[in-house]
């Protein structure tokens, strides 16, 4: 007797359909799973056996073969337990479920037969819809996130024992409420008002947020670099619903949706000991890295110069392309990673800076340290902000402008950019050709041309200055880039060399 069921395996952040075929026939009692299962899938044998028995079903003492098709795809994770159990019940005649092949099932089983939450439920619900399934049966805990996928019926179950009632249509679970998509940062998120004084840093943050420009802050420890970075999400424009769904999909695939979405744009601050694979994703099967988790949000690299060089190098291409391409023997996956890069660094290893008489760093140490500031990754950074220790008067003074006020200006500037460039795009993404179409006042053009002619600017730096100036003009609501805005952009741009 044969039965088939549909389920999914998670591959990166997308779900790949898997067909579970269970064959039960006479022979020595045996239970085999074939079709490239990983250890967690193979252990489903024990979980399924115990769950069946503890839910009052009979575990057939016959020869059982479970085939996971396609056989060439490597299957991972415990999410196939439910489908294997359902197909086994059907094949052994304990559950007459003629619609089994038309629904998808995913979920991990506990030994008592109750279901446990899985990773990537949202992606699986969407994949079920794409593959034409009528419904997807999931653990109750994943119901809310799977309900974010529209156009497919989501059936949350709490235990394997509920399946007979479900099949007999004696019991109909309520359609779960979908998780609310939080577009705005949550209430009580850190506010920019905490940053006191530091007018230049505030301006740099605002410009970076308005144009989506990557930002590097350099200054002594304790000057407020990390504080400033953690306030950035609060001044960025709210997520578009489409973007929020992308963020939710990634969070779901990483099992981070259990307590719901944190709200607003992601803010990821990996520690500087992170490996290249941890940063951009990797492993077999590929798992998303911090760059993907920061999609549509901010990736904050504190102590940029302490990061491993290979990790920073690996970040270069994804920054440019907006996606990570991971090649494995089984094929190539791409993971989205459109994030805003924010980095902070000390001026030298001891942090005091060479002009401080107490700085005791050897010159070659400083050279090596700062080498990372001028490496390939730094080439992708637009804005440089030199941060200094705020004075006592500033620290004790009035709080700065609140996030809400800054965010209003940022949103208006983004609207202007979208009108000019198209929906969802910002100045930082302007191609060189688009940058040349910026409207410059004659003074501003003269200033830029003068600098370029004196070879103080490379071609790339020229375009970078144009993009920054355009953002400053957008913030001020100016129709064309004036001389003042161009001068500010030239000051704010990252320097190519010391």
């Amino acid at each position, binding site marked *: 007797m044969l039965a088939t069921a549909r389920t999914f395996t998670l591959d990166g952040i997308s779900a790949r359909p898997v067909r579970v075929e269970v064959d039960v026939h006479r022979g020595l009692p045996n239970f085999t799973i074939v079709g490239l299962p990983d250890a967690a899938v193979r252990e489903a044998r024990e979980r399924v056996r115990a769950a069946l028995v503890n839910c009052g079903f009979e575990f057939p003492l016959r020869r059982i073969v479970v085939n996971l098709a396609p056989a060439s795809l490597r299957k991972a994770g415990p999410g196939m337990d439910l489908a294997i159990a359902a197909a086994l019940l059907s094949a052994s005649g304990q559950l007459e479920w003629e619609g089994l092949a038309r629904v998808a099932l995913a979920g991990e089983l506990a030994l008592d037969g109750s279901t446990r939450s899985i990773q990537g439920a949202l992606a699986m619900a969407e994949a079920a819809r794409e593959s034409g399934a009528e419904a997807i049966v999931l653990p109750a805990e994943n119901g809310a996130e799977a309900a974010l996928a529209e156009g497919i019926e989501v059936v949350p179950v709490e235990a394997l024992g509920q399946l007979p009632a479900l099949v007999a249509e004696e019991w109909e679970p309520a359609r779960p409420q979908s998780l609310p998509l939080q577009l705005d940062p949550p209430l009580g998120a850190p506010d920019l008002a905490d940053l006191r004084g530091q007018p*230049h*840093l505030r301006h740099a943050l605002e410009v970076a947020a308005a144009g989506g420009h990557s930002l590097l802050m350099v200054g002594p420890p304790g000057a407020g670099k990390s504080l400033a970075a953690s306030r950035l999400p609060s001044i960025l424009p709210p997520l578009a619903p489409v973007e929020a769904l992308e963020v939710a999909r990634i969070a779901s695939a990483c099992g981070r949706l259990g307590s719901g979405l944190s709200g607003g744009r992601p803010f990821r601050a990996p520690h500087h000991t992170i490996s290249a694979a941890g940063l951009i994703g990797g492993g077999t099967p590929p798992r998303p890295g911090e760059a993907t988790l920061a999609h549509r949000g901010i990736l904050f690299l504190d102590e940029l110069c302490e990061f491993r060089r290979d990790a920073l190098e690996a970040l270069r291409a994804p920054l440019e392309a907006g996606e990570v391409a991971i090649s494995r023997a089984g094929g190539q996956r791409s993971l989205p990673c459109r994030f805003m890069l924010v980095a902070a660094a000390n001026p030298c290893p001891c942090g005091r800076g060479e002009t401080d008489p107490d700085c005791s760093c050897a010159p070659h140490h400083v050279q090596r340290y700062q080498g990372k500031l001028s490496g390939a990754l730094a080439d992708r950074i637009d804005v440089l902000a030199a941060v200094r220790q705020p004075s006592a008067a500033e620290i004790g003074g009035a709080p700065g402008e609140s996030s809400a006020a800054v965010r209003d200006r940022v949103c208006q500037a983004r609207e202007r950019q979208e009108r000019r460039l198209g929906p969802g795009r910002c100045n930082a993404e302007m191609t060189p050709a688009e940058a040349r179409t910026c409207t410059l006042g004659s003074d501003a053009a003269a*200033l830029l041309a003068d600098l370029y002619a004196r070879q103080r600017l490379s071609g790339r730096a020229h375009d970078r200055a144009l993009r920054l100036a355009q953002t400053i003009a957008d913030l001020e609501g100016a129709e064309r880039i004036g001389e*003042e805005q161009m*001068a500010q952009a030239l000051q704010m741009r990252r320097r190519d060399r*010391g």
Partner: protein
Amino acid sequence: MAEPTACLECLRRSWLLAALGPYIEKIAAGEVGRRSPELLRLSNEDLVEVAAPKVGEQMLARNAALPEERLVEELLLAECWACCRHGDLYPDSLRDAPDAPWALIGRGSPQLLDGLEPFEAVTIVGARRATSYGREIARELGRELASAGMTVVSGLAFGIDACAHRGAVDAGRTIAVLGCGPDVAYPASHRSLWRRICEVGLAISELPPGATPWRWTFPARNRIMAALAGMTVVVEAAARSGSLITTDLAADLGRDLGAVPGPVTSRVSAGPNALLAGGACVVRDAQDVLDAMLGPGRQQIEHRGPELDSALEAVLTAVESGHSSCDAVATAAGLPGPAAASALARLELLGYLTCSSLGTYSRTLLPSTTPVSL
């Protein structure tokens, strides 16, 4: 032009010094400072007796047996040449010193040594651990002195030395005096600078090609640097610095001393400030050096920045009084952040300021036209 020629005896002395490297290192250890120039006054026999009494005989015998063809071939292979104290190319200024090197091994254009008078060369020395202020000054001094026709002499070390060379190779003549063979780039990270100096300038040493540096070879090359130039300028140096060995040696030879004043709180300005207190010539820019060496007003460096309006003037004053980041300048000049930012960008464009890769601003040597009000 005088040809680079060296007699066999002087050449052998260079090879002997290289062979004695580790022995001299041992006896000079702990008091490296002035010991090695003193040691190098000794004749071959005495030097060997002092440094390596046990193997001295053998070493002298082996050295005396070195055939001229082999030495010439080694020089050729390393693309070097040699001149000795008996030849025409050997600079007269070196003959003043009692501890002058017997032979100079060079790589690059020998014309730079040809008829080089002390008043045509300036030695710039300073700390390896220099601040951006010192590096900027060293570079500007190197550039302006070289473009004024001076030969800039320095030691290719980290910090001030390299900056002086970098400024000078772009503008004119520079000589690097090395503590290793002239075909050895030391420190290794200055390889490209060394290569460039060999192309347009000159690297010299008293050690043969391939010789490795020892601690004692640096004070030893300092005596050559001190003797070559009419004036030795210290840009930045800590109170007990190798650069001050050079100034001591220069003073012994009756050469002029110059020092760039710095903040009294800065550790690396303690050396030059102490020299100034002792009567060294104040070096604020290349003009001061030219005035001291050639006489006031004999050669003028003409450069003045364009005029500034009052807002830019205020920002420039703020940077001159030590505020380096945009925020600090904005507070000091009483301007809103964006206005200060654009003023800094303009001043950078006009050449008054430079910005480091860390976003901190410092003043260039360009004098402003606005008269200083007291």
